[in-house]
C-alpha cells in the first residue's frame, strides 16, 4: 500500500491515545464535580482523526467541531493542556474559557474550533484562501459531521471553495447520527459524497474505520489541492459508539447496530493490519498501550493538580491589543 511503516505507527499511537484519553474522560465524567457541562466523545471514530492528520504536514491547518478530541490528539496537541481545559482549569490550552467544546490549539495549527454545527466550513474557506493568497504549500482540513451537511454553511463553503479552487479538504465524519436523528431521518441521500458533483469537486466515500484508507484518500485530496485542482469532499463512513454526549441515554441507537460497529473497531483493525503485515508485534502494541496509558494518567494528574482560574480572569482575552 505504500504507506511508510513509521506513518502507520504514528496512526496507531494516536488512535490508542484518543481511545484511552476519551475512555478515561468518560469515567471521570461519572465522578461528580470533576468535569462540568457537556462531554462529547469520538470513541469508535478514531481512524478519521488519525488517518487524516497523518497525511498532513506541519504547515497544514485543521479546523474541528464539537467532537474533536481525536482530531487534536492526532495532530499532536499536548494531552495535558487539553485535559486541563476539559476540566476547566487555568492551565488548559484556553485558560478555561472554552472547555471541551471549542478547543483551540494554535501550536499545532488548530487556530480555532467551533461547536456551531457547520460553522467550521466557511472559516476553513478563509483559512484555505489565506494559504492560497500567501502561496503556501499547505492545505486546510475541515472536520464536520453528517448532520452539518444540512446546514446552509456547508453549501456556501463548498461552492466558494470550488469556485476559487482553494486548498481545502472537507472531511465529513459520517457517524450515522446527528444527535438523536439517524442518518436516514435527517438526510435524503444514501451518501453525502455525491454532493461534491454539485460543486464540480472530487468527492469520495471511504471506510472511516480504516485509518489507512482515510490516510490514502487524504493524501490524494491533498495532492490535488497542492496541484491547484481545488477542494475535495471526503466522506468517512464510521459510527458513534456512545451517545451524542456522555449524558445521552442513547436508547434510539439499536443495540445490535452498536454491537455490529464495535466489531469493526478501528483501533483493533489497524492493530491487526499492522500485525498481519509484520509491522508491529504484540509486544510493540503492548508497549504502545502502556506508554499511552501513562501519558493519559499524567494528563489527568496534571489537570487535577491544576488550579481553576480566578473569577476575574473571565474579563481577560476578549480583546487583542
Amino acid at each position, binding site marked *: 500500500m505504500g504507506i511508510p511503516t513509521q506513518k502507520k505507527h504514528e496512526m496507531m499511537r494516536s488512535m490508542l491515545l484518543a481511545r484511552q484519553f476519551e475512555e478515561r474522560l468518560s469515567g471521570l465524567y461519572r465522578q461528580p464535580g470533576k468535569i462540568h457541562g457537556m462531554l462529547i466523545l469520538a470513541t469508535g471514530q478514531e481512524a478519521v482523526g488519525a488517518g487524516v492528520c497523518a497525511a498532513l504536514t506541519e504547515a497544514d491547518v485543521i479546523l474541528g467541531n464539537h467532537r474533536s478530541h481525536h482530531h487534536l490528539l492526532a495532530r499532536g496537541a499536548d494531552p495535558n493542556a487539553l485535559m486541563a481545559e476539559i476540566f476547566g482549569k487555568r492551565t488548559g490550552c484556553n485558560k478555561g474559557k472554552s472547555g471541551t467544546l471549542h478547543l483551540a490549539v494554535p501550536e499545532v495549527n488548530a487556530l480555532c474550533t467551533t461547536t456551531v454545527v457547520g460553522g467550521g466550513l466557511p472559516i476553513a474557506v478563509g483559512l484555505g484562501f489565506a494559504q492560497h493568497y500567501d502561496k503556501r504549500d499547505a492545505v486546510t482540513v475541515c472536520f464536520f459531521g453528517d448532520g452539518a451537511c444540512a446546514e446552509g454553511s456547508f453549501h456556501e463553503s463548498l461552492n466558494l471553495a470550488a469556485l476559487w479552487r482553494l486548498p481545502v479538504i472537507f472531511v465529513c465524519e459520517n457517524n450515522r447520527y446527528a444527535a438523536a436523528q439517524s442518518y436516514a431521518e435527517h438526510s435524503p441521500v444514501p451518501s453525502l459524497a455525491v454532493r461534491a458533483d454539485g460543486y464540480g469537486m472530487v468527492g469520495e466515500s471511504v471506510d472511516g474505520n480504516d485509518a489507512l484508507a482515510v490516510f490514502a484518500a487524504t493524501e490524494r485530496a491533498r495532492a490535488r489541492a497542492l496541484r491547484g485542482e481545488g477542494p475535495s469532499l471526503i466522506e468517512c463512513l464510521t459510527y458513534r459508539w456512545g451517545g451524542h454526549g456522555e449524558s445521552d441515554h442513547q436508547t434510539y441507537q439499536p443495540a445490535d447496530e452498536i454491537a455490529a460497529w464495535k466489531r469493526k473497531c478501528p483501533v483493533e483493525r489497524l492493530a491487526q493490519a499492522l500485525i498481519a503485515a509484520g509491522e508491529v508485534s504484540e509486544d510493540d502494541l503492548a508497549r504502545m498501550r502502556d506508554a499511552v496509558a501513562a501519558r493519559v494518567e499524567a494528563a489527568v494528574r496534571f489537570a487535577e493538580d491544576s488550579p481553576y*482560574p480566578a473569577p476575574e480572569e473571565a474579563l481577560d482575552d*476578549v480583546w487583542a491589543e
Partner: protein
Amino acid sequence: MQTLGMGQAINQALREEMTRDERVFLAGEGIGVGIHDSPLMPTAGLLATFGPGRVKDTPVSEAAIAGLAVGAAAAGLRPVVEVMFNPFFTLASDMIVNHAAKLRYLSGGKTAFPLVVRLKSGAGFGAGCQHSHNLEAWVAHCPGLKVVMPSSPADAKGLLKAAIRDPNPVIFIEDMALYFAPAPVPEEEYVIPLGQAEIKRPGRDVTLVAWSKMVGVALQAAEQLAAEGIEAELVDPRCLGPLDTATIVESVRKTGRLVVVHEANRTGGFAGEIAAVVMEQAFSALKAPLRRVAGPDIPVPASPPLERFYIPDSARVVAAVRSIL
C-alpha cells in the same frame, strides 16, 4: 395546584394547544426523538401523543426550520418551532427578522404570520459562549415580533398558550435553568395575555425590573433587603414586546428608584430601553441614579468559576440597591 418545572409547564401548554387546534404543529432538532429522555424537557412525549405528522424532527437547518414556520403560517397553520440554543438564532435571524416580522407589513396587511419560535437560552450549564448568549435585545428591537420571557412555570404555560393563539410572530425565550426549578401551576386552563407585566413583589423603596431567570435572583435580593427594612418592588415585564411600560413607570413613580437586572451583556442590553422609558415618563419622580445589574461585557466562559462570575446573583442586586439608597 400542581408543581411543575418550566419545561413541564411548556409541555402542558403545547399539549393543550395541539389538542385544541390541529393546525398547531411542532418542528425542530430533536423535539421528537431527543438525546434527553427526561420528562422535564418541554417536548417530552409529544411525538408519542401526536405522531410524526405534527411533531417534526428536522435536520440541522435553522434557516429552513424558521422558513418552514414562516411559510406554513402564511398558509394558515400554527407552527411552533424550536431553536435549540439562543446563539443559533443568528442562523434563523434572516427568516425571522426579515421575513416573519416584515412580510405582513410588506403585504399591506393582507397576509398574517402566526408562528412561535421557542428559543432555549441562558448561561449556567458549562457549555460556553456558543451555547449561552442572551440575545433578547435583538428581537425586542424588531417591529413585527412579540417577545416573551417567562420567569416561572405558571407564567410560561399561560403565556405560551397566548403566543400560539396570537396572530403575529412571537419569540418565546426559555431560560433552561427554569426547567429544573419546580413551582406551582394552576390545574385549570388559563391564558395570560401578552404585554402585561406582573408585580412579583410589592414594595415602596425601590423598583426592581427583571425577567426570566433573573426574577428569581431579584426576588432573593428583595428578601435579603427586606430583612434590612428595605422594601423592593419587583416588576416582571414577562414580555419585552409589547412592553408594559405603564406598570414599570407607575412603580418607579412610587419608589423613585430603579434597578434593572438581566443576564445578557450589560452594554446594549434591554435595560437601556427600560431606563430610557423611565427617564422619559417618570423623570420628576426619580430620586437616585439608575443601576443595572447585568452580565459583564464578555462572552459567557465555560469554566465553572468563570461562568459563575458571569451570571448576576442576588448579592450584586443587593449591592446595587444599597448604592442608591
